[in-house]
């Protein structure tokens, strides 16, 4: 995976976390973001994002991180 591919995935995850449940609680937003990623991302993209989260995860927003935890589960 290149840095630019990872950057795109991080950006997309953060965008989804910010947009998919504006104004909702952290828990609801994370659940909706996780559901969105689950439904629209290819398995390879999810794996790469989870790998990044496990290794570092710094660039992900809090909601995005909470969402990835649900993907992990």
């Amino acid at each position: 995976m290149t840095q630019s591919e990872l950057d795109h995935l991080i950006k997309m995850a953060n965008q989804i976390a910010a947009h998919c449940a504006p104004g909702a609680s952290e828990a609801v937003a994370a659940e909706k973001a996780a559901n969105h990623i689950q439904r629209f991302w290819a398995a390879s993209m999810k794996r790469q994002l989870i790998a990044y989260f496990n290794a570092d995860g710094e660039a992900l927003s809090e909601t995005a991180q909470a969402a990835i935890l649900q993907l992990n589960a």
Partner: protein
Amino acid sequence: MLKYYHPKQVERSEVDFGTPAVEGSMVNLTIDGRSVDVPEGTSVMRAAMMAGVKIPKLCATESVQAFGSCRLCLVKIEGHRGLPSSCTTPATEGLVVQTYNAEIAKIRRNVMELYISDHPLDCLTCPANGDCELQDVAGEVGLREVRFGLDGANHLDAETDDSNPYFAFDASKCIVCSRCVRACEEVQGTFALTIAGRGFESRVSAGQSEPFVASDCVSCGACVQACPTATLIEKSVLDQGQPDHSVLTTCAYCGVGCSFKAELKGNQVVRMVPDKGGAANAGHSCVKGRFAFGYATHRDRVTTPMIRAHIDDPWQPVSWDAAVQFAADRITAIQQHHGPESVGGITSSRCTNEETYLVQKLVRAAFGNNNVDTCARVCHSPTGYGLKATLGESAGTQAFDSVESADLVMVIGANPTDAHPVFASRLKRRLRAGAELIVADPRRIDLVSGPHIKALHHLKLLPGTNVALINALAHTIIDEELQDQAFIDDRCDQPAFARWRDFIMASRNSPESLSSAIGVSAEVLRAAARRYASAKNAAIYYGLGVTEHSQGSTMVMGIANLAMLTGNLGREGVGVNPLRGQNNVQGACDMGSFPHELPGYRHVSDDKVRLSFETAWGVKIGAEPGLRIPNMLDAAISGTYKGLYCQGEDIAQSDPNTRHVESALKNLDCLIVQDIFLNETAKFAHVFLPGASFLEKDGTFTNAERRISRVRKVMPPLSGKADWEATMALSTALGYPMQYQHPAEIMAEIAALTPTFSGVSYDKLEAVGSIQWPCNAEAPTGTPTMHVNEFVRGKGHFEPTEFIATEEKVTRRFPFLLTTGRILSQYNVGAQTRRTANIAWHDRDWLEIHPQDAEDMGVVQGDFVLVTSRAGETVLTAELTDRVQPGVVYTTFHHPESGANVVTTDNSDWATNCPEYKVTAVHLKKVVAGSAWQTEHQHFSEQQRRLLAPAKTRNSHETV
């Protein structure tokens, strides 16, 4: 007794009834002893035609209102004085009409004698010979002599204006019936033509007596269609003579999907004539569909399959078998080395439903993954997402006809007069009849102000603030209690509405809070919201100015919210109407082209749906979505994605951040491009499968109103295979045989597997002409209006739409916002229209820049301007215009060498990855030469042309 004629029951009729149909209560009259029932107000001429009595006419034709100038159609009406013209006399109860007697015959002959005394008698060499109403009527009235001679004053030496590339205007043959003038006004709505002068000096004039091409004429062809003589005639008919047979088919340009008669001699199309019975276009056309079909036989067509080991190698022409075997071997090898997910496909929105269906089937069944996407990714994918989430179906809610019942039309981020011209003509007709218009667009599109049309409000918002705008409008409607509470209570999900109501009423969503971000005053925003909410029928039409943003999906949901809030759904005259870009973008989406959906918008994780396809196809289908186009490109750069089958798309030109796309394509081990030309993407390909134009195959297209129409083969495929046959061959070579004898069999499979298509068949399409899906047991004749008593998802779902501004912002380094769009004469990447005479109107992409900004930079009209974004830079030619606001610049992307997409960024819609073409922060600088990318592009294109040359010069039958 004969009954009232209704055009919908006699679709495709060739009959000219002389005056338009009217609606009204029925009256009975007697014409030449025949009793006929017609709606009150129908002309006597039309009533006679309905009774089977043809009255001679010249100035009347069904597409325009009666004019009463030629005096040929006069009739005798019992109890009335004189001989009124039948075209202008309305039918009333009990009229007794006589269409012929000795007195009438004499007058008609005298009238014709006068016409012919000032008309060239060159019938035998006239291009309209045999297709001339003047000639016909001369015969009908029995004209035998012209007593006045040709010595007097006449117009026989009037000059021909052949300035238009597609049609000529021979003034010497003009009878000044004004049908062309009225067609330009009433049908097209451009008002480019007029009758100049008076009496004997009267003549048809384009603009202020300008050549046609220099006037406001948009070359729609309505005048040519209306002309009864050879005065306005296609140059192709002048060159080739009249066509001798015709085939009814569907235009392959924009999402309006006009029905055309392809008129031919042998296998050569002489002209395309809009079909009066076509439900989408009702006999109208635009410059692209009507005239720009020459690309189909252009010398640049590549008609031989070709292969090469590497993109620096010359192309090698081979047989179909050799090409598909080469492709299949490479794909198989890639999958063995890199895994089953390392390849994928892109379906084409220009190909037929059947072809698109086969490509996604090939990806899912022969490649064995869900890595299939389509160009809707970069245009209307947010429409699919947003409308599914709120209303329950990924499609527009109305038929085009619906606009005729609208009282207010709001056009958001769409430019119908350029991108959907035939629909725009209908819209303009409704606006001239009194409907109100609100335009929301950063740029002053033609619709804002034109002949007899003026928008009530032009909301000139800043690019990127759509969601702020829609929130401000919705806030106002609740704030001022203008919502349709009964509709909301009855039709919508209540908890969702309550949550949304709390959200929208927050003070941050008020027009007062948002006006500075939007760039439109709060008063104007409130006034626009009031008009939208209080109109009896308010309809929203939108385009890519809505979807191609980082918040595209949010905006689509915002539009659906607004329509639900005001009860503007579920009947004629209202609705949420996405204007689709390409001819079959709706169909490509319907056919399961997205990596997360099987045909009919059903998610791949749905076990029941997957099982139905697995059973029919005999393969396992993955429950996880595949890669979308931008993800494919990223994975290609990373080296995990190595093979792509790309049918009829040109992602190297159309997709954003060109350098990124080019790097990805260069990294592929097998790029299979199927196209009619060696397009920009094909320059990176290893296998070229020659495509078939829409004239060379059978199938169906689905337009923006969900209308499925037949595409019919009018000539054999130049390469020997239609695109669906090429896909079958590739699939079979990959070890997954496909054996359809005709696209009708593919449609039968689609219908069997897709509930919204279960009632669709070629037999039904033959019988009724076209069908709007859903078409099934509940709606056997299709569904013009959706969500009538209930939303597809049950209760309408209000979604909160927080305005989160794009990251693409103006800075000191990038102080301007660039937005992109299309123009009338060119289409998408221009591969088709650039290879026609349409180039006369747009030979390059211009950078529109406000004169004030230009002055600050010392730029004058025609200067080269370097446009730099954080993605790249390119040089465009400046066009100074106040269409754009200061701080905003605009360009089109029809010419590859312009590199408009070198500048656009990889920002995309949060939900669908639809690129943010409409907002790019840029820096501008006056320069004297092209950019580095343009130089590279030129060298690369020249190299690729050289590599193609040997293949082009060899006989297409020669194979290795």
